[in-house]
């Protein structure tokens, strides 16, 4: 949620602390801050708070509780006026599980034009574009208190017997709508649409985007404002299918309270009249099942018993007060009736979390678990590790490979890699592939003349079920079975830091030279290593024999670069130079 600090400041008389202090306050008591620059903070609102905190009021409310800064005013605690009933607008909801509430307002005689500077500035401060005073008013109220709003041009809708008619219904299969982004969308029955009921034409994709059919234009005079609440999953799936993610869909998919519609309507009507003139003719409110608040009860013992803390009754009571949660305290029992927008507070543990985060988890003192009487069961794990240790002892190196395969008994409905849509039925195929690669890499990583031996222990998936199996790159006759072993103690190892390796191909060159008897091969190796330079990543003596008092030393040099593929030519050049230098030192190259 892109949040402007100066916007937040409007909720407080006292100046807000430095942005760094704000970031800390959010990070340790509410939400992570993804990014902060100047006036702008990107607040990563947690999913359980997205119903009430995807707006400046919600963020300010949190800040007020965390920093104990009283809010100048909280628009969600100010009364809702009684709106006059509209005579010019009818609203009808086909399915009130999809649309929980629909408020429509008729405003006549507005004058569309540019927004005043303060409104433009506010929108631009959070990266929004100013469009016109009407649209800006709806966006401002959404960003301020979280209620998505939409305005339609009444003149572009049909009127019958002096009244407009809006119907929220399921979209027809293949129904098309031109949206405000200028693109045409083909709808499905899983989506809901806002229609001009007299014409039965869609004027908006419910909860997602308005249609261009009733778009506000410069000539617009009479408008219909929508402040509604649509089912979260319905909106999320529609946005996903249409690949149309909007500020409205983001909010609706998090199930904000339908109570919020009235606050949104109150604020947007105020603002529209203020910035575009006109008069509110009336409002229609279809709200079949009003939200009810269920009190949640908890106790001091319950809170401290879960957190392992020693918070006092006063501290806890004060947290609820800071959060503006209406609380009834009897002895050590707290009965809280959450405000309508806090749909996340349902069970006692939700209140425990509020106490923990507001007072701060740094106040939870680490405590070691008491000794347990139950001896931990690690038998299966130890049985598996026993086999691994056996194989390592036999010179096998462990690998881990991917569980997906080209063919198998179990096929995925949605593979990431379409060429590997199934789950492996054995480890053999991956083992062969790994062995081929290992044979190529062997000169780089294995001691001279050692061929790679590999094993993997992993899960395979067959018709009979899944099981953990062992695969080795060559047969091991006496390999122990995978079975529980409660007493085996697996070997522990110390690993050094990761040594990066090059992903580029390597080149091998051998050089053999006659040396006088008594020559130290180690010294010759060191000399060759120095002369061969940095590109020589590995060198070893691979052959020695004596003939007529002279010793032939055969060295293998492996060249590889971290930056590029080496060419034969450059390695040949290094070898030629090396031969020259060795010749100068009196060695005869064979």
């Amino acid at each position, binding site marked *: 949620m892109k949040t402007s600090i100066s916007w937040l400041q409007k909720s407080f008389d006292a100046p807000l602390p430095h942005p760094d202090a704000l970031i800390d306050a959010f990070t*340790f*008591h509410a*939400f*992570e801050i993804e990014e902060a620059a100047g006036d702008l903070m990107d607040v990563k609102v*947690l*999913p359980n708070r997205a119903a009430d905190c995807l707006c400046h009021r919600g963020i300010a409310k949190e800040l007020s509780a965390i920093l104990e800064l009283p809010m100048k005013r909280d628009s969600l605690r100010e009364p809702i006026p009684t709106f006059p009933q509209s005579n010019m607008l009818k609203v009808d909801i086909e399915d009130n599980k999809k649309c929980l509430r629909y408020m429509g307002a008729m405003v006549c005689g507005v004058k569309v034009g540019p927004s005043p500077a303060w409104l433009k500035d506010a929108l631009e401060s959070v990266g929004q574009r100013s469009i016109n005073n009407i649209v800006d008013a709806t966006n401002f109220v959404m960003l301020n208190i979280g209620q998505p709003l939409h305005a339609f041009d009444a003149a572009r809708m049909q009127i019958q017997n002096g009244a407009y008619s809006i119907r929220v219904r399921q979209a027809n299969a293949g129904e098309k709508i031109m949206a405000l982004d200028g693109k045409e969308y083909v709808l499905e029955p899983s989506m809901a649409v806002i229609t001009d009921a007299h014409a039965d034409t869609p004027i908006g994709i419910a909860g997602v985007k308005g249609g261009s059919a009733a778009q506000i234009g410069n000539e617009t005079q009479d408008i219909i404002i929508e402040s509604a609440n649509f089912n979260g999953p319905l909106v*999320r799936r529609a946005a996903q299918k249409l690949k149309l993610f909007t500020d409205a869909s983001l909010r609706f998919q998090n199930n904000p309270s339908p109570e919020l519609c009235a606050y949104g309507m109150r604020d947007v009507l105020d603002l529209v009249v203020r910035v575009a003139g006109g008069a509110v003719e009336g409002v229609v409110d279809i709200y079949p099942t009003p939200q009810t608040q269920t009190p949640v009860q908890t106790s001091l013992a319950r809170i401290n*018993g879960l*957190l*392992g*803390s020693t918070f006092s009754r006063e501290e806890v009571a004060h947290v609820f007060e800071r959060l503006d949660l209406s609380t009834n305290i009897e002895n050590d029992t707290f009965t809280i009736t959450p405000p309508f927008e806090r749909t996340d507070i349902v*069970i006692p*543990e*939700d209140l425990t*979390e509020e106490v923990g*985060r507001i007072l701060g*988890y*740094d106040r*939870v003192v*680490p*405590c*070691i*678990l008491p000794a*347990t009487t139950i001896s*931990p069961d*690690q038998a299966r*794990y*130890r049985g598996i590790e026993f086999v691994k240790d056996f194989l390592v*002892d036999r*010179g096998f190196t*462990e*690998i881990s*490979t*991917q*569980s997906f395969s080209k063919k198998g008994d*179990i096929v*995925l409905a*949605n*593979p*990431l890699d379409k060429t590997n849509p199934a*789950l492996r039925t054995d480890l053999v195929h*991956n083992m062969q592939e790994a062995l081929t*690669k*290992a044979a190529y890499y062997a000169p*780089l*990583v294995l001691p001279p003349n*050692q061929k*790679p031996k*590999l094993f*993997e222990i*992993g899960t395979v998936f067959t018709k009979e079920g*899944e099981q953990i199996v062992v695969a080795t790159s060559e047969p091991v006759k006496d390999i122990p079975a995978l079975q529980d072993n409660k007493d085996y103690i697996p*070997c*522990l*190892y110390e*690993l*050094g830091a*990761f040594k*990066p*390796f090059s992903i580029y191909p390597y080149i091998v060159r051998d050089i053999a030279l006659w040396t006088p008897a008594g020559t130290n091969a180690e010294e010759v190796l060191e000399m060759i290593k120095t002369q061969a330079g940095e590109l020589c990543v590995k060198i070893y003596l691979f052959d020695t024999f004596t003939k007529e008092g002279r010793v032939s030393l055969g060295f293998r040099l492996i060249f590889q670069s971290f930056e590029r593929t080496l060419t034969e030519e450059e390695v040949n050049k290094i070898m030629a130079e090396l031969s020259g230098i060795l010749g100068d030192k009196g060695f005869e190259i064979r």
Partner: protein
Amino acid sequence: MEEQGHLHPLTVAIRDIAAIFGRMGFGFAYGPELEDEWHNFSALNVPADHPARDMQDTFWTNEEPRRVLRTHTTSVTIRELEKMAKSGETEKRMICIGKVFRNEATDMTHEAQFYQYDGFAVGPTGTVTLAHLKGTWERFYREYFGYDAKIRFRPSYFPFTEPSVEVDLWFEAPGKKGRWLEMFGAGMLHPNVLRNAGLDPEKIQGFAFGPGLERVIMVKYGIPDVRLFHSGDIRFVHAFDIHQK
């Protein structure tokens, strides 16, 4: 004489983890990688319409009923809690280390398959608290990294824990300035999860955690790319000096 083979760094880490948690009384549990929807989602209090159940986040089989490649080893936690409800035990501590799957594009820090070392400790109400979660992890990191590790909690959200926290580790790489690293999510098991396992949340409570295994290994040994782990490439296994402890 033939040289010893090498263990994969994952195994080296799994053994360290199993040993440290073993000393704190944790067993080592296994469960299926191909899970039913109940154990991966429903029992863990993940709502039916939660985005994680969508096709773009999770691998589903084309069977009827569909199964899921587990998205976390928390599925093993719920299976262990179910066993507990059947046996009538009142305390249990388990870690479950295993492969998990996410249907997401891979890059240096993301793989479609990786390991988690989930775990939980439960006991009679009041005996296993968030303070114990903190103590357990401070001790784990101290033993695993071998220095005076510090951790801190930040508020977070997961459907299966309440309260939920994000755990940060103060990490000082050799020769570098220390910094806080975001490590994993944890919290106190949600009453619905205990209830779904057949336990009475008024009588049993406890914590659960779900860190990624590759992540902690990458931090400890300075590994730059998570994709190296399951590449079947022996250069990776050989990219460490290894000594038996």
